[in-house]
């Protein structure tokens, strides 16, 4: 049953502002006396900065300040978890895009002109560009302490006892990275305040991260740095930690000049410098019996972190536990290595490492199905977690394990799997050159923070009832386009029993709401929503007794508010929300509440990967139907079916939007988005040749299935969806292309050049 007030069909709160072109993004912030900042960056990925001359830039018209490591007015360290990165290069250059100097000028053109006058000499050093060679003896060192940053493990059972299995399937998967390509590039406007405190206007998913690092940079207490999130033009993980860097640059220039500074990255710099989905190499070995039951899995994941740690270890931690898939397997060994290279800066991106490892584990499932003559759905039923076999890779028994089988059933039915497969087979019979395929992939995903980050798994919200019966709500989780504020507003209104248009909800201001951790891991609905509900519970404890009095009852039990009217089954008397609020104010009772949420404490052993990795999980899956043109290598996606176990739908239009957007972004990653590197420098830093899907590239049909079985820990039973909507798209596409070509495929993205290579009759292995 749907709770009254959920999924009312109301447009999201920001729909009209955005449709009218009135939303104000970071670059729209204009302040009196504001300067424009630019970054001068290294074009090479590895070397020693032996000369830096900024005198001509300083003398250029309009220039107000030029900063280098020598005169930077703040702490030159950037690292969030590991202290391995400077804001401005002192001597060693480790990646293309490392910052050499910052310039502030009265106009953007003047700053850009001055940037071209900065003279620098970088003596090249050999770099590390292949993650597979980075740990070899004698490999050049990216960081002095060595190229291996960190390792993660799963040790379950004894995989070595499986070596006598009927079947051993082994391969190396080479999976490409991805540019977030949020339409709004990174940036901050830093505004020094008259009292010496700071206000920053930033495009970000994590204003609290910016606050922390800018405060450290300036040497100030965090209460003296206030970050206001501007309407954010997309994030997808790319605006988790990276925005701190342009924010620190803007703050540095503002500190040096005493004036507000707007620093907005141009697209090419944004693509070169900011974090990317990690390129990974996944070595996957699977032991199975002829019945199709998997006995053991051994996985090695090589994560290309780039030159700095950033949040790569956090991404790797998730890749590590996700690398086997939604299967109950007795013997598992996983080794995940996070490795420094001089390539692009790896970081969070929708799915946090899970899409890359899913491509490997799901390709292996299909190969196993072929090897034992089973259907891909059947092989997943045989091995998937279920009420009978509920144990995930971490060894924990999943309370909702039965939902995996249900998801498979729904996905098989809704995608018309059997019919489509028969049609493809018939077409091949008629014309052996016909090249159509269909592929399936499924995943399990913890839609909250991993054990390693559970201290951040919390959320806060203020809900304030105004005297006229309208409501202001402020939450610590961010809207970046995904519809978080719509969900928060719906939850707040449904909890109070009023129409959602009465609730005004605002973007994060770090001075007004508690640090709620990062808005990542598809956790916004749960952590923000539960915090809102906690505030609502406190308010209802004050409102309901007042309403009961108006209804002539002795106590509040059984009093409900629906559409702004309080009622009770025992009486026909009703009273309105406004009347009760008037009473609350009349009695001078507190009209506001601070709600709080924290996920339950969990036990987990990082040495074995056993324990409770996440508070709860979701299942998801995709079926992708393709046509491949062998001559041109072009893959046309005809139909995609997505199935997600969402707990409960809060705002239906937003949920569907997440799925549609996730599918298309996933297809881009799988088929056209290739980061082309030349010794660590991005050769295609723009949308001319880094090809994200356009309206011409979308599938003919996207079918969506939502399973709604409430999760106890979610608000009204809801769980997250933002990332699962993406994760198995790439793997399903890989399987579909493999089906179409009738051969193994072990690489993503499947660009036309690669597909042409794979389609050649004599083609061997993977490119």
């Amino acid at each position, binding site marked *: 049953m749907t709770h009254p007030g959920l999924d009312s069909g109301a*447009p999201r709160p920001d729909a009209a502002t955005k449709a*009218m072109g009135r939303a104000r993004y970071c670059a729209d912030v204009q302040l009196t006396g504001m300067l424009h900042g630019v970054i001068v960056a290294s074009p090479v990925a590895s070397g020693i900065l032996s000369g830096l001359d900024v005198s001509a830039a300083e003398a250029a018209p309009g220039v107000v300040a030029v900063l280098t490591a020598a005169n930077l007015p703040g702490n030159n360290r950037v690292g969030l978890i590991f202290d391995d990165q400077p804001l401005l290069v002192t001597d060693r250059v480790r990646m293309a895009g490392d910052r050499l100097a910052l310039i502030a000028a009265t106009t953007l053109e003047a700053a850009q002109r001055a940037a071209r006058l900065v003279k620098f000499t970088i003596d090249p050093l050999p770099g590390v560009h292949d993650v597979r060679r980075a740990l070899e003896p004698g490999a050049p060192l990216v960081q002095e302490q060595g190229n291996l940053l960190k390792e993660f493990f799963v040790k379950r059972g004894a995989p070595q006892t499986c070596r006598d299995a009927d079947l051993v399937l082994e391969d190396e998967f080479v999976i490409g990275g991805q540019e977030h*390509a949020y339409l709004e590039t990174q940036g901050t406007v830093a505004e020094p305040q008259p009292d010496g405190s700071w206000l920053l206007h930033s495009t970000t998913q994590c204003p609290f991260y910016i606050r922390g690092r800018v405060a450290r940079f300036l040497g100030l207490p965090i209460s003296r740095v206030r970050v206001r999130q501007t309407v954010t*033009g*997309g994030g997808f993980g790319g605006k988790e930690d990276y925005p701190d860097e342009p924010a620190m640059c803007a703050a540095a220039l503002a500190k040096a000049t005493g004036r507000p500074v707007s620093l907005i990255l141009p697209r090419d710099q944004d693509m070169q410098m900011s974090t990317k989905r990690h390129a990974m190499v996944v070595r996957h070995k699977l032991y199975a019996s002829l019945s199709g039951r998997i006995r053991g899995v051994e996985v090695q994941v090589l994560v290309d972190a780039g030159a700095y740690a950033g949040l790569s270890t956090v991404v790797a931690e998730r890749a590590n536990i996700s690398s086997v898939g939604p299967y109950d397997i007795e013997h598992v060994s996983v080794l995940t290595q996070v490795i420094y290279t001089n390539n692009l800066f790896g970081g969070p991106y929708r799915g946090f490492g899970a899409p890359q490892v899913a491509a490997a584990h799901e390709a292996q499932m299909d190969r196993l199905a072929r090897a034992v003559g089973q259907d891909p759905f059947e092989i997943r039923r045989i091995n998937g977690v279920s009420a009978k076999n509920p144990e995930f890779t971490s060894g924990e028994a999943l309370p909702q394990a039965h939902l995996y089988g249900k998801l498979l059933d729904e996905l098989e039915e809704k995608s018309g799997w059997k019919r489509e497969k028969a049609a493809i087979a018939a077409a091949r019979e008629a014309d052996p050159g016909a090249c159509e395929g269909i592929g399936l992939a499924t995943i399990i995903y913890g839609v909250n923070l991993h054990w390693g980050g559970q201290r951040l798994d919390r959320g806060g919200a203020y809900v304030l009832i105004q005297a006229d019966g309208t409501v202001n709500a402020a939450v610590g989780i961010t809207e970046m*386009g995904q519809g978080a504020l719509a969900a928060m507003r719906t939850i707040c209104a449904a909890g109070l029993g009023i129409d959602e248009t009465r609730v005004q909800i605002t973007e994060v201001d770090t001075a007004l709401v508690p640090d709620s951790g990062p808005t990542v891991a598809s956790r916004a609905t749960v952590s923000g929503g539960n915090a809102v509900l906690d505030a609502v519970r406190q308010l209802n404890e004050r409102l309901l007794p007042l309403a009961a009095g108006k209804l002539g009852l002795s106590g509040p039990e059984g009093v409900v508010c629906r559409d702004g009217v309080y009622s009770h089954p025992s009486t026909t008397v009703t009273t309105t929300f406004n009347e009760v609020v008037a009473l609350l104010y009349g009695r001078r009772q507190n009209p506001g509440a601070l709600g709080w949420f924290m996920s339950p404490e969990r036990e987990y052993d990082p040495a074995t990967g056993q324990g409770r990795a996440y508070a709860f999980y979701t299942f998801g899956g995709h079926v992708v139907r393709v046509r491949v043109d062998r001559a041109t290598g072009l893959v046309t996606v005809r139909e995609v079916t997505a199935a997600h176990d969402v707990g409960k739908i809060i705002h239906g*239009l937003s949920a569907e*939007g997440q799925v549609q957007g996730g599918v298309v972004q996933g297809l881009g990653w799988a088929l056209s988005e290739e980061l082309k590197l030349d010794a660590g420098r991005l050769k295609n830093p723009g949308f001319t040749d880094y090809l994200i899907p356009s*309206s011409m590239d979308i599938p003919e049909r996207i079918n969506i299935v939502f399973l709604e079985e409430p999760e106890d820990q979610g608000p009204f039973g809801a769980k997250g969806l933002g990332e699962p909507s993406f994760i198995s798209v790439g793997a399903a596409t890989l399987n579909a292309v493999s089906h179409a070509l009738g051969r193994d495929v072990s690489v993503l993205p499947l660009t036309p050049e690669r597909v042409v290579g794979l389609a050649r009759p004599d083609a061997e292995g993977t490119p």
Partner: protein
Amino acid sequence: MKKITYVINGEARHLHVEPNDVLLDVLRDKLGLKSPKCGCDRGDCGACAVLLDGKSVRSCLILAIECDGMAIETVEGIGQDGLSALQEKFIALNSFQCGFCAPGVTISATELLRNNPRPTLDDVKEALSGNLCRCTGYTPIIEAVLQAGNEGGEHGKL
């Protein structure tokens, strides 16, 4: 500096521009019209689109001086007498997520519907092919344009 005149969203405006000033910057910084967005600054993304004498152009690729005497329409003008049928559909169908692409998409779709009030699916996809959107997967945008065409094409305000 050269003195030029635009008719912007129906109103004549006189201004001074440098020969190398780009239309997008002049609209945003000199005229305070912030709806056109800069997504790439090189003609790839369509976020900066405006209507120039009724035809959509990428304002990041055009010099301000070239548009002397011309009529310019931005999204500020399209919504000024109440929402257009298209904008109403965008809202009802949750067409945008982050919304950064919305101004450019609105310009391209408005141009299409004015010239072709009953577009087909292929017409819509084609008309939007120069407007990148990273959030929505385009489906809810295309659907809104089709519905605005079917329901509001001849009578609605476009």
